[in-house]
């Protein structure tokens, strides 16, 4: 049965390969990676260091080009998607501009690359940033400088800055890894609230299994040497996922499942390297 042409995925990687360095010192950061993410999904990439999860983010955001295979964002190349301002990026550090107030930090992106704004649909007018900041609990900090805020608040401002672009795709590179556990959980709450309202596709890189399970619709498990996708696990837990979630058995079952997958991915890596040296 012939179906109509499938809608373009939000993010599509097909047999992507990325190698750093040359010849003997070459590291295969990503090998034969296939990934298809539907619009509006919250997807986490998890895996040990060196498994290529940050490489995936850099490829999708167009900061790097694949050596083989293709990366598409809503059917466009990453460069075209950036030109149309479809992509929001939240790095590991807040990366705010220290000389601008929080409000001006989050509004500056709307003045950047103004032609992209006109090219986009009229319905996606830029949101009221004051309102968005208030929602993120930054109402009183709006006119302060970043250095006057705590690390958690700075990272929140960075997230608001990215959401303020109304991106089709939001890329987050371990955004909470530098925060203490308490701040981390409250930021997860707020991220889910914001995402609930603006419903963009999120690609979220993390080291933390519980963070991945709590936030995501889908968890992509990756393994190193060479960096590759080993498993894709759909998280079938009801939303909204408040703090109660941590007490539920299903939540822990998913955590155990993903830990298990990560462990077997490790083992297969060890086996592969041992086998390699034998030959």
């Amino acid at each position, binding site marked *: 049965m012939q179906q109509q042409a499938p809608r373009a995925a939000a993010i599509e990687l097909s047999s992507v390969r990325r190698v750093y360095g040359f010849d003997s010192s070459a590291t295969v950061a990503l090998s034969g990676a296939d990934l298809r993410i539907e619009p509006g999904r919250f997807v986490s990439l998890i895996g040990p260091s060196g498994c290529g999860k940050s490489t995936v983010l850099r490829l999708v955001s167009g900061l790097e080009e694949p050596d083989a295979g293709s990366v598409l964002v809503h059917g466009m190349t990453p460069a075209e998607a950036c030109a149309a*301002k479809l992509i929001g990026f939240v*790095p590991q550090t807040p*990366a705010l501009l220290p000389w601008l107030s929080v409000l001006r930090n989050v509004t500056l992106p709307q003045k*950047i*690359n103004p032609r992209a704004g006109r090219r986009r649909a009229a319905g996606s007018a830029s949101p009221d940033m004051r309102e968005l900041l208030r929602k993120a609990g930054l109402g009183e*900090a709006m006119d302060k400088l970043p*250095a006057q*805020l*705590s690390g*958690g608040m700075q990272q929140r401002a960075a997230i608001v800055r990215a959401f303020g672009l109304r991106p089709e795709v939001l890329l987050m590179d371990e955004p909470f890894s530098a925060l203490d556990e308490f701040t981390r959980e409250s930021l997860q709450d707020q991220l889910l609230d914001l995402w609930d309202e603006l419903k963009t596709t999120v690609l979220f890189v993390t080291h933390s299994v519980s963070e991945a399970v709590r936030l995501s619709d889908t968890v992509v498990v990756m393994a190193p040497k060479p960096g590759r996708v080993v498993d894709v696990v759909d998280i079938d837990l009801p939303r909204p996922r408040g703090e109660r979630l941590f007490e539920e058995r299903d939540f822990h079952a998913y955590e155990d499942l993903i830990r298990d997958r990560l462990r077997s991915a490790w083992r297969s890596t060890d086996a592969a390297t041992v086998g390699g040296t034998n030959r």
Partner: protein
Amino acid sequence: MSLASQRTTAVPVAETETGIVPREPSRWSLKHPRSRLAWIRPAIWLPLVVMLALLGGLWQWGTARMPYLLPPLSAVGETLSRNPGYYLRNAGITLEESLLGLAMSFVAAFLLAVVMSEAPLVRRAVMPIAVVLNVTPLVAIAPALVVAFGFGSAPKLIITALICFFPILINTAVGLRSVPQPVLQVYKTMNASRLEMLVHLRVPNALPYLFAALRIVTPLSVIGAVVAELSASGSTGGLGTVISNASSMNQLAVVYAAIGVLAVMGSALMLVITVIERRALHWHESSADRT
């Protein structure tokens, strides 16, 4: 007791909830080192006053013993109060030379730094030369410039501009390039143009470096102007000319009066730079803990 200790451990949590880092004590408190009222406390002003009194005493003692080494302070004060117009006019000439030279080199160095940050080829060609010239004592070519350009203001401006040029160039170039990678990545994913990155990210990021350069270069600009005047004996004016004329006639009081005026001029310039810097860099950590 144990309850109290529990309370104190709870404090950081409350703090992250509001998330706002507590303000430092009021600037009007006497205890605050940057408060204007702090000068009322003897502990702040007394050390300087004692030191000045000691130095003055030492000077007078030296004068009494060796009249050719130092003029009496009273003689220096007398020539200053008798001819204030003479010193002011000559100070004006020197000030004009140094500020004009500084302004010229500021514009040129800033523009070249921008070109260098946008064009790696230019940077690779220019930067090594700039670094070498920056450590060369450029005042040494003052006599040669006087030979080439005569006794007018041209050699003075050239010398001043040359001395100021390389510190400004190097610092600005570093500042323009040192925008943190994650910041650049965020704005690259918005497809920010090079001009937008320059205006919104690189130039503001370079400001602290630029002001650091100005603090180095402002005294240098006065030195440049004076050295050029000294090497062009027979110039029409300027404190350097005053010094070289007076010392050839053994008028030590006039020499030291001119040096005193130069010191006051240099301090005033630094004060102006500091005030502008505080305004422009209120966000920067260097302005938070400067005393």
